């Protein structure tokens, strides 16, 4: 395991931001951590990047202790913080050159890197544009390029796609897949549940604790119950009547209704239950998503 964290605990005064968290990642794998603001993701990432102290537990990267041998970790670690941390007044090219210089990369090495980064990021035509004038998606690609400038084996990315549109997000993930395929280990946090499903392993955290972990499919498979879409306009009256059926709960979902039933509930049974309540049924089964599992676990 190239990243190994055990019993990681971080407190801020009275508040336990992260409470005895364990996680590990292998080379060539992507681990996604999902959870709301305040779940403790950023505290963990900052500690792994050597930026803050922590209270208890152990964190190792490539066998080196984050607390005692960070100098050994620095050359193999790429870290992208949550807030945009590039120089807005420098151009795309100048930012890359600056970060490369920090790692002693200059001359023809730097030129080769630029060519490669421009290719994967599509930033080539914008090389002369100031970083502050880039769109959200392009900024994040530039920040990733800067974090990659020294070819790190381990990447820690703190919400790299927040505020980025779906197309740019997909392109960003394509880059992550190619890095993973070349052997990098990637630890990434995200508020988007659909991104979690792209990862090899996922951890759902809430209030500093782990709610679930496993492959995204394993986590989704832990949903207890059944889920259906009722294709009817969700009027207040209809919601009330559907929700009153024993064992069912109804949620509005745009111009249709999602119905949560007990395990093993079938379309046929649902249809007849709805019809008995005077609801002409047009239902289809739905695959529960990670968020459904998340909600169920949080509600205990």
């Amino acid at each position: 395991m190239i990243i190994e964290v055990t019993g990681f605990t971080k407190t801020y005064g009275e508040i336990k931001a992260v409470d005895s968290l364990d996680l590990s990642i292998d080379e060539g794998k992507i681990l996604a951590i999902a959870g709301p603001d305040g779940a403790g993701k950023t505290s963990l990432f900052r500690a792994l990047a050597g930026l803050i102290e922590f209270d208890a537990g152990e964190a190792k990267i490539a066998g080196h202790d984050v607390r005692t041998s960070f100098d050994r970790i620095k050359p193999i670690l790429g870290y992208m913080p949550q807030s945009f941390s590039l120089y807005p007044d420098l151009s795309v090219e100048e930012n890359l050159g600056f970060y490369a210089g920090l790692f002693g990369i200059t001359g023809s090495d730097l030129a080769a890197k630029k060519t490669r980064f421009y290719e994967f990021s599509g930033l080539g035509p914008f090389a002369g544009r100031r970083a502050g004038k880039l769109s959200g998606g392009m900024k994040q690609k530039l920040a990733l390029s800067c974090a990659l400038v020294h070819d790190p084996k381990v990447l820690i990315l703190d919400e790299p796609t927040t505020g980025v549109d779906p197309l740019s997000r997909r392109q960003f993930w394509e880059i992550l897949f190619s890095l993973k395929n070349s052997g990098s280990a990637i630890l990434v946090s995200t508020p988007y549940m659909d991104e979690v499903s792209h990862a090899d392993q996922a951890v759902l955290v809430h209030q500093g604790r782990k709610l679930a972990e496993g492959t995204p499919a394993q986590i989704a498979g832990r949903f207890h119950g059944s889920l259906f879409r009722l294709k009817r306009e969700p009027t207040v009256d209809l919601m009330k009547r559907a929700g009153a059926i024993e064992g069912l709960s109804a949620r509005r979902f745009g111009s249709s209704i999602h119905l949560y039933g007990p395990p093993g509930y079938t379309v046929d049974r649902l249809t007849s239950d709805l019809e008995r309540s005077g609801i002409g049924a047009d239902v289809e089964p739905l695959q529960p998503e990670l968020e459904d599992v998340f909600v169920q676990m949080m509600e205990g």
Partner: protein
Amino acid sequence: MGYTVAIQDLTKDFGKFRAVDRVTLDVERGEIFGFLGANGAGKTTTIRMLCGLLLPTSGSGKVNGFDIHKENEAIKRSIGYMSQKFSLYPDLTGRENLVFYGSVYRLGRGDLKDRIAELEAHLELGGFIDRLTGSLPAGWRQRIALAAALIHRPAILFLDEPTAGVDPVFRRRFWDLLYGLADAGTTLFVTTHYMDEAEFCRRISIMHDGRIVEIGEPQALIRKHGRTDLQDTFIHLITSVDRK
């Protein structure tokens, strides 16, 4: 059923750059409308025109019945705006924040008190309205921000990624509140990059390079373009426009 937003061929040029290109849009009263698009597609410029903050280069239309060319001051007073970045004062309580925003909109003392009581009940702020907003979890802070945006009873509320960073349980509760507002007649105009949030909207539009390339009910659009989900539909639409 009246229209809260009715615009035709709305266009905005900045010098030679056309940021918004002949956008035509109708949003019904009490509708939850999702306004989607890539970064830099022109969404913010369009919203600034709808909010009365920016005059269009050409095109016509009305927001809350007010003309977007001539009555932009009246538009400003009749709309509400809430964003993830929209800041409450963290060292004031929720109630003090609401009083502050109420006075900005010049609500009378008695009216403001009634309105806060009303929002406290509807948005279920009871447990935390008197705590400092800076100390609240994101989900509760967001509900105070929603109340602040609604303090002057706007007919339309613009919501910019309203539930980013909030946990899924809060998020579902927040959307229940939004549906309640829409049922009571408030029009909700939502911008988001969360495709699952977009699916909560009754209709959505997808904007690209200043134009609206598609508009309709989320499920209908997915079917129309033969895609599996909304994200896929979004990406398909934007990339196929680029290829043309």
